[in-house]
């Protein structure tokens, strides 16, 4: 399992989504998912399964999608898989997500240099490619012994 270091420097060695900050306040970690080329329901399919996303959601991460798909279409996918989300936005709307949600860290996962990494970094998000993200502890089930 990869060590998970937040931008603040705090190292998380558990799979919790809610580290305690220096003020003693629980803050979630926000994860934004691209869809096509990132999630297994995308076109083309990506390496992150909806079950992995569900695990992160159940652990308390703030999750949502940031895709070029129509917003109503994004919501429909999440509804189809019965995964509650906090946001569904277009590619250029990550700054609005960051403004709307207070989180310990902001991550975007996507498969495109120009449309995912560029927008994420400009919005102040950390960025992961899908295969990098798949190794993160966020998606590990409690009884999987580290297997995502």
């Amino acid at each position, binding site marked *: 399992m990869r060590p998970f270091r937040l931008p603040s420097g705090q190292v998380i060695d558990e799979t919790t989504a809610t580290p305690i900050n220096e003020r003693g306040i629980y803050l979630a970690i926000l994860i934004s998912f691209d869809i096509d080329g990132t999630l297994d329901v995308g*076109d083309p399919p990506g390496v992150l399964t909806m079950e992995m996303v569900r695990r992160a959601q159940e652990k308390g991460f703030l999750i949502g999608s940031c895709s070029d798909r*129509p917003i*109503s*279409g994004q919501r429909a996918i999440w509804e189809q898989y019965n995964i509650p989300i906090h946001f569904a936005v*277009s*590619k250029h709307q990550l700054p609005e997500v960051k403004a709307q949600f207070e989180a310990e860290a902001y991550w975007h996962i996507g498969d495109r240099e120009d449309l995912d990494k560029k927008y994420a970094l400009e919005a102040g998000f950390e960025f992961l490619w899908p295969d990098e993200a798949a190794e993160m502890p966020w998606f590990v089930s409690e009884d999987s012994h580290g297997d995502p």
Partner: protein
Amino acid sequence: MTTQNAPASMYRTTEGLGVWDHKGKVAAVGVGHSPTARRWDGTTEHTLGANSILALRRAIEDAGVSPDQIDGLVLDPVTTTGAHWEAGNAIPMDVVNAYNPTDDPLDGIAKLSAEWILKNMPELTNVKFTMYGPGCMSHAIVVAAQAVGSGQTNTCLVLKGWHNLEGRYNQAGISAADEVSGTYAIGPGRTIWGPPGCYGTALQFAEYCRRYGKTHDMMAPFMANSRRNGLMFPEGYWAQHRPEELTPEDYLAARWIAKPASLFDNDIPIMVSAAYLFTTAERAKDMKQKPVYILNHASSRGTSRSLTPTLDEVQAETGSTGRKILEGAGISVSDISFENMYDGFALFHQFHIEGLGYRGMKFGDALDFYQTDISIEGPNPVLPSGGNIGSGRSRFWMHTDCIQQLQGRAGARSVTGVKPEIAVSGGPMPMGGNFTVWSASPD
């Protein structure tokens, strides 16, 4: 048999030609489509060529003719505008040799010749006339109509196929080359070094909004209506693969590609082929489907003073095109039941219909018109096919829809607010395209 591009004399490009000599004497009868896909999956079964053969056979079957009755084939040999084969990429010879190849191994994969079709459809034993209408289905249709009208062929297949490859559109092959000739590199949408394809249209639309006091947001009802219509087009990409609406909220939240053109003002490139069977009005009477008669075809060949046409140039050209369409058909604009002008880019659809004067529109009226009932249930249907917005980048949904509507075979997409009697379709560009007037009756 060496197939040539249609000569300029086959196109009706100027005003003042009078009523088309062959008005009502040529009919579309059969329609065939392949399934759609986002991209070629690399298999033998799903090549451009395979799709095209399937579409042709379906059109033949739909018309209820035997293959040996067919004596003509008109098609567009160019099967993409932006999915260019990378020069260094290996060509899958197992796929090539699964068919009867021509001298060009990419034939049937990333381009399509009449020779390849005839080599791979042995049932077409009687084809004596082949011709290219290069550009899109709109070109091929007018060439086929003229050829049937003038007696060069009696029963003619009309074909348009599209391929799409892995990777991004307009970013491979010649589009990524370090050196290209002339002004190719700086034309919109041609290479990764130039502006996006929608750049020119975006400039014209920006000037349109400034001149008439309109906004990009006013496009939203048109976009939602087009996708709605497309989702009722079972042959289309969105209906087959991603049956999702494009709500005004979705449209207005899209990122800019070339402001004021947003992501959804551009279409989605796909794999798909379509074919129609044209014949003489006399022969059509004995075929399986109701004939749809061609009253006229007209072509636009506008030239601009610079690389990007101005709004004034666009309006002058679409106005002229509208007059040619009506003059050659011998009708007035009030005779048109519905319009299916091209929409890929969405922001130029209004140039086409304003030039035509659809429902009495003048320049600057269309976006206000979009705020009224433009649905298929209303009295003023706009783009009942849904076009490229509704079904993906093919440039032929508009033609299929006209034929199906006038045959009474448009299913859930049928226009109900008007009686479908005369329709017009065509494109692609406001400054250059080919247009057809279709009718349920020959006169």
